[in-house]
C-alpha cells in the first residue's frame, strides 16, 4: 500500500513564491531521505497537492478532504499562520498528523497546539530570540520597530525577554500600523529616543510582508545619530534590499552558503543543477519536513498515527540546517540559527549574510508555551 502524503499549502495568492519553494523542498527532502527511490520499506510515497488559496476556511476544507476522502497518512503545510491555526483542529478530529511548515506563529505549537501537530519550521520566538542573542551585548542600546498587531507585538515581547540576560538595554518600542507607507515619523521617534544613548545603538526591525521600512529609514541617514539598523534574515528576493546595508547584523534562519553539512551540500548542488538557482529559506524548510517524515515513518515502522507520534517525539534528524530535534513537550523542532553580517559583492544580486556565529540549539532558550 502506498504512503499518501498531502501537501496542503497556499499555492496561489501573494505567497506564491514561498509556496513554490516549500513544495520543491518537500519533494527534494523525500527524495534525499529515500535515496531517490521515493519508497519507504517498499511502500511508495505519493504526494497529493492541495491549495488553501491562503484562506483558512478553504484550508480546513481541503485538509479534511485530504484526511477524509483521500485518506492520506499525514499532511504537510501550510504557508500562512492563520490558515495553519484553522487547520489544527482538523488534525485532531481526524486523528492524523499535520507537520506544520513553514507557518511561524508561536501559538501553533503554543496555546492552540494539539498532539497531532509537529512543526519543522521555526516559530517566531526562535527568530526573535536568535536575534536577541546575536545583538545583545553589554552596553548596547536597542530600539524596536514592529507592525502593530499580534505578530509584531509577540515578536518584540520574545525579543525583549531574550535580551534581558544579555546586558543590552531595550530603550524604545515603536509600533506602526501594518499598512504604513511613510516611516518618517516612526524613524524620527526612534532617533529621538536613541540619539542621546551611549554606546552602540541598534534599531531592530521586525517587519513581515510589504512596506520595506528598512530602506526608507536608511534614506534618512541614521548614521547621523550613530544608529545601526538590524533585522533578521529573509528570502533571497527580499535580501536584494540588504545590498544598501553593508555591515548590518542580525540572525537568520537559513542562507544556502552558511550551513556546512552533507545534506545542505546535496541540496545546494542539486538545486543549482535543476533550477539554476540556489535553494532558499522555504526550500530548506520543505526539505526538513520531507526528511522528518521519512525518518519518522522508518522509526515508527508504520504509518499508524500513534506509532508515528511515539517515534517522532524527541526524534533527532539531519536537515540542510544540521541537526533538528522535535521537542517532546510541544513537538516544535529545535534548530540552529545563524548570526550574520551583511557583505556586499557587486557580482551578487543580494546582500550576502556572512556567518558571524552559529547559534546552536543550546544557545537559545526557547520557552514551551503550550501549557
Amino acid at each position, binding site marked *: 500500500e502506498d504512503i499518501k502524503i498531502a501537501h496542503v499549502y497556499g499555492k496561489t495568492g*501573494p505567497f*506564491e*513564491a514561498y509556496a*513554490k519553494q516549500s513544495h520543491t523542498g518537500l519533494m527534494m527532502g523525500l527524495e534525499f531521505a529515500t535515496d531517490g527511490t521515493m519508497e519507504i520499506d517498499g511502500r511508495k510515497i505519493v504526494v497529493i497537492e492541495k491549495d488553501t488559496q491562503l484562506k483558512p476556511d478553504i484550508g480546513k476544507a481541503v485538509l479534511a478532504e485530504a484526511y477524509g476522502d483521500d485518506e492520506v497518512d499525514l499532511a504537510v503545510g501550510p504557508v500562512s499562520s492563520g490558515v495553519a491555526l484553522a487547520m489544527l483542529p482538523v488534525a485532531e478530529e481526524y486523528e492524523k498528523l499535520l507537520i506544520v511548515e513553514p507557518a511561524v506563529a508561536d501559538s501553533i505549537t503554543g496555546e492552540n497546539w494539539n498532539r497531532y501537530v509537529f512543526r519543522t519550521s521555526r516559530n517566531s520566538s526562535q527568530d526573535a530570540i536568535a536575534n536577541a542573542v546575536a545583538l545583545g551585548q553589554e552596553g548596547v542600546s536597542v530600539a524596536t520597530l514592529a507592525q*502593530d498587531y499580534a505578530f509584531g507585538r509577540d515578536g518584540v515581547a520574545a525579543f525583549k525577554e531574550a535580551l534581558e540576560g544579555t546586558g543590552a538595554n531595550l530603550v524604545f518600542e*515603536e*509600533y*506602526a*500600523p501594518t*499598512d*504604513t*507607507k*511613510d516611516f*518618517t*515619523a*516612526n524613524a*524620527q*521617534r526612534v532617533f*529621538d529616543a536613541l540619539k542621546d544613548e551611549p554606546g552602540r545603538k541598534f534599531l531592530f526591525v521586525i517587519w513581515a510582508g*510589504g512596506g*520595506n521600512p528598512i*530602506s*526608507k529609514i536608511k*534614506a*534618512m*541617514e541614521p548614521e*547621523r545619530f550613530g544608529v545601526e539598523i538590524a533585522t533578521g534574515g529573509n528570502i533571497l*528576493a*527580499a535580501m*536584494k*534590499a540588504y*545590498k*544598501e546595508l553593508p555591515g548590518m547584523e542580525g540572525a537568520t534562519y537559513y542562507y544556502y552558503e552558511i550551513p556546512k553539512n552533507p545534506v545542505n551540500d546535496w541540496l545546494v548542488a542539486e538545486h543549482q543543477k535543476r533550477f539554476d538557482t540556489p535553494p532558499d529559506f522555504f526550500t530548506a524548510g520543505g526539505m526538513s519536513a520531507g526528511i522528518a517524515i521519512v525518518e519518522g515513518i522508518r522509526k515508527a515502522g508504520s504509518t499508524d498515527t500513534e506509532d508515528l507520534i511515539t517515534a517522532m517525539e524527541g526524534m533527532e534528524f539531519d536537515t540542510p540546517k544540521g541537526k533538528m530535534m522535535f521537542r517532546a513537550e510541544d513537538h516544535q523542532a529545535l534548530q540552529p540559527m545563524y548570526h550574520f553580517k551583511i557583505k556586499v559583492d557587486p557580482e551578487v544580486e543580494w546582500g550576502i549574510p556572512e556567518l558571524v556565529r552559529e547559534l546552536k540549539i543550546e544557545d537559545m532558550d526557547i520557552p514551551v508555551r503550550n501549557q
Partner: protein
Amino acid sequence: MSDTSIKPRIEKVPLSEQFFQKLPVMLVPLLALAGLLAIGNPASWLTLTVAGLAMGMMIFIMASGLTVVFGLMDVINFGHGAFVAIGAFVGFTVLAWLAGWTESPSVLLNLFAVLIAILAAMLVTGLLGYAFERVIVMPVYGEHLKQILVTMGGLIVAQQMIYVVWGPDELHISRPEAFQGSLIFGEAAIEKYRLVAVGIGLALFLAMRHILQNTKVGLLVRAGVENGEMVEALGYRIRRLFLVVFMTGSALAGLGGVMWGLYQETITAHMGSEIMVLVFIVVIIGGLGSVEGCFIGALMVGLLANYTAFLAPKVALISTIALMVVILMWRPQGLYPVVKAK
C-alpha cells in the same frame, strides 16, 4: 422696458459665507501650522512636513489619473491599481537595463534614466489602458456596479499576468545613486528622492490644471458623462474622447507606479491594489473630478499621516479615514466638487 424687464435682485453675500467658500485653499497651510504648534521642535517638524508633502505628491500622482477617470468620466476603475503595479514593473525593468546610468553618480544621467523609465511605463500602461477601455470598460459606462466588477476582474487578470511575465518574486531595485540619502539641515533630514517627487508632482499638477482649464476636454468629458447622446448630437465623437482620456488616466497611473516603486524600492504585483483605498479617499476628499481638490486632499493626507504618526501612532491608523469623514460632514461633495455625484 424699465421696471418690467427681467433683472433678478442681487444681494450681497455675507462675509462668513464667502470665507467658508475660500477655506479649502487654506487647509494645507493651516494644517502645517497646527502641526508646528503640536510638535514644537522645528527640526522634527521640518523633516515631517517635507516628507508629508512629498508623500502627498506621490499619492497625488497616483490619484491624478483616477480623478480624471473616476471624477470626470464617472468610471470606478479598480484596475487603476494594476496600472500602478504594471507601471512600476515596466519602469524597474527599464531601470535594470539602464543600471549603468542609475549607478553613476551623475544627477543628469540618473534623471535621464528615470525619465526613460517613466516614459516606457507610461507608454505601456497607456496602451494597456487602450485595451482595457475597449474590452472591459466600454460596455459598462454609466453602471458603477458592473464597473467595479469588471475592473476588479481586470485587476486580477493583470496581477496574474505580472506573475506570468515577471514571476512570483518581488522585485527590488535601488534608487539611482543621486537620489539616495538625505540633505541634512541641522537635525532635519530631507530625503533627496522626495524632492524629486515634489518636483514631478508639482509639474503634473500645473500641467493638468492648464489642460483642464484652457481646453474643452474637461467640459466635454463631463458633459458626455451626463448626456452622451447630446454631446454626440453636438458633433463630438465622445467615445473616442473617452478612450483618450482613459488612456491618459492609465498612463498617469503608470507614472505613479514608477514614482511609487522607486520610493518603495521593492515592488510586488499587489502594490497597486494595496494603495487603492487611500487613493480613492483622496479623490473623494478632493471632490469628484477636481484636480485642485485632489491635490489639496493628497497633501493633507500626507501631512496628517506624518503628524499623527509622530504625535500619537495609534491614531495614525484612522487619521485618513477621520479626515475623509470630517471633510464629508463639512462638504458632502468633497472640497471642490466639479461633478455632481450620483
